[in-house]
């Protein structure tokens, strides 16, 4: 329901009003689009045109060569196979991390609203405040812990012939992102479930449903909006993370997209191929852009359904 649903005003001023509103929205849209526009046109220009031309001008002689190069030929360190291979590395990391942190957030939110215990507010407060820790300050202690995981992995390798995931760089990154994403996912779900009618939970209990049954049959089916919000939020943050990714998974076979992109873009010497850089940047951002564009509608709906309620 729109807050502006009801507006009964004279017809003339209404038309003027509409013009002003649309005008303002369009101006803002143009301003917001400038960086994207710059990136797009640059990625379609040749190097001489970039060096001598205007940043905002349309390409005189559009070429998709930079895109081809960024996709399949640009050098990431010593391997020059473009950035397409790093998609898979990122996906292997992002999907489990998002899934696990969302599920845990949902369970936490469920417990913190429907199965309250003494001190539940303190627990929630502590988890929420954890969102504010600067990641730079956890980098080294976390590395030490991950190193211990690696040692454990070697023990398991000797004992069972497999490391059970301990010491695997991708698993490490998933773990790190789950740990530092929990605060937000818990916040989202707690606020959502706070507004969820407790009567339904009670009714299910009377019917003899257990803890997990209630979660699965009563809450989860009604959680779609907030799941969308959480997944979008987590997906974007984890996909775009550079600090943890570069510190814990630098080598080629597990290197996530952001690190690869950074290696393409941040060259210390040589002619900077801005067109290739921009194309690579846009390719790397494609998944998050798609998520926002496709799920944008549900995003607002999800926020509406609870995430914004204090």
């Amino acid at each position, binding site marked *: 329901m729109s807050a502006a649903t009801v507006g009964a005003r004279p017809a003339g001023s209404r038309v003027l009003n509409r013009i002003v509103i649309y005008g303002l929205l369009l101006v803002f849209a143009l301003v917001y689009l400038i960086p994207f526009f710059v990136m797009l046109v640059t990625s379609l220009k040749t190097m001489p045109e970039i060096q001598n031309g205007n940043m905002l001008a349309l390409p005189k002689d559009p070429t998709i060569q930079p895109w081809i190069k960024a996709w399949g030929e640009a050098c990431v360190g010593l391997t020059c196979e473009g950035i397409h291979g790093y998609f898979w590395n990122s996906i292997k990391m992002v999907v489990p991390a998002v899934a696990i942190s969302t599920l845990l957030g949902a369970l936490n939110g469920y417990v913190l609203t429907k199965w*309250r*215990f003494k001190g539940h507010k303190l627990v929630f407060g502590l988890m929420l405040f954890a969102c504010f820790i*600067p990641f730079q300050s956890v980098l080294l202690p976390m590395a030490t812990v991950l190193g211990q995981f690696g040692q454990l992995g070697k023990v398991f390798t000797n004992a069972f012939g497999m490391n059970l995931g301990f010491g695997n760089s991708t698993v490490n990154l998933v773990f790190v992102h789950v740990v530092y994403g*929990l605060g937000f996912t818990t916040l989202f779900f707690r606020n959502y479930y706070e507004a969820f009618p407790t009567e339904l939970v009670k009714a299910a209990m009377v019917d003899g449903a257990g803890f997990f049954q209630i979660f699965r049959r009563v809450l989860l089916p009604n959680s779609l909006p907030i799941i969308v919000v959480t997944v979008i939020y987590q997906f974007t943050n984890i996909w775009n993370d550079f600090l943890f990714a570069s510190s814990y998974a630098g080598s080629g076979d597990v290197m996530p997209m952001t690190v690869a992109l950074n290696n393409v873009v941040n060259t210390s010497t040589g002619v900077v191929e801005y067109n290739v850089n921009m194309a690579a940047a846009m390719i790397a951002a494609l998944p998050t852009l798609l998520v926002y564009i496709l799920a*944008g509608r549900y995003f607002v709906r999800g926020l509406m359904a609870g995430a*914004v309620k204090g």
Partner: protein
Amino acid sequence: MTSIVTDRMQTPERATQRKSLRARLQEWLPKIVLAPSFAITLFFVYGFILWTIYLSFTKSKAFPSYTLTDARAYQRLWRWTFESNPPSSWYTSITNMVIFGVLYIVFCLAIGLFLAILLDQKIRGEGVLRPIYLYPMALSFIVTGVAWKWFLDPGLGLEQTMHQWGWTSFHFDWIKNKDYVIYTVVIAGVWQASGFIMAMFLAGLRGIDSEIIKASQIDGASPIQLYRRIIIPLLRPVFLSALIVLAHMAIKSYDLVVALTSGGPGGSAWLPSNFMYEYTFKRNEMAVGSASAVIMLATMSAIIVPYLYSELREKNR
């Protein structure tokens, strides 16, 4: 709000007397489910905070050292705090944090709310406009930093474009100016986050009960009065959520400064997070870096904890 469900949880003694093992497990289950998350948070957040506090009292340089010394890291920060002529890097960082934090939050809220109100006027093409405002949030600054850097560069970007279009007196060189560079960081930051805030406000607006609005309109309120007196006050919870999101992004704005300004002229664009990273990892002065992290966290808690406290208390009523 405290429900019957929770009451039962709070008095397990009464129930346990003749409960089967299974039922008792059921009772403990919620806590068991929550426990790992909580334990992880305690160890990996609060444990690490304690570790950082400890390090700030040591002589840690390139690597952590565990021999305690006095509070010399804090003494240095204290001295740097009052060393404003010429400004120390720390002084620059904290003053920038105040400028950036206030402007970033205020502008994001204002633009976010403004756009949300506009979009909420039954706009055709909302589906196209909304992602345009939202997309900056989807991109990392590794990606957009270069584009912004160009755009703000007087020799390449806006200024040059205006000159080419004939407006030769146009001048915009903030990114090259030590006194103004922090405002360019604000611009890019607001660009990135305001769309997200817009989405939050839009959701808030759509969630308002239309009966309230109808009632006030019958009372003869003009649209502006309607927004000022009725709707915006109703959005209070959204303001608070937005504040939390923005505050945490402001504190963590590190990439923004690096990608856009690489520190700014003479380090004039630094934020405390840059200071901390620089001292911990680049200058091998881990004790000073840790001390600055502790001060950041302490300041944060001074702002956030009272808010959390009041919010969580309120819910109790």
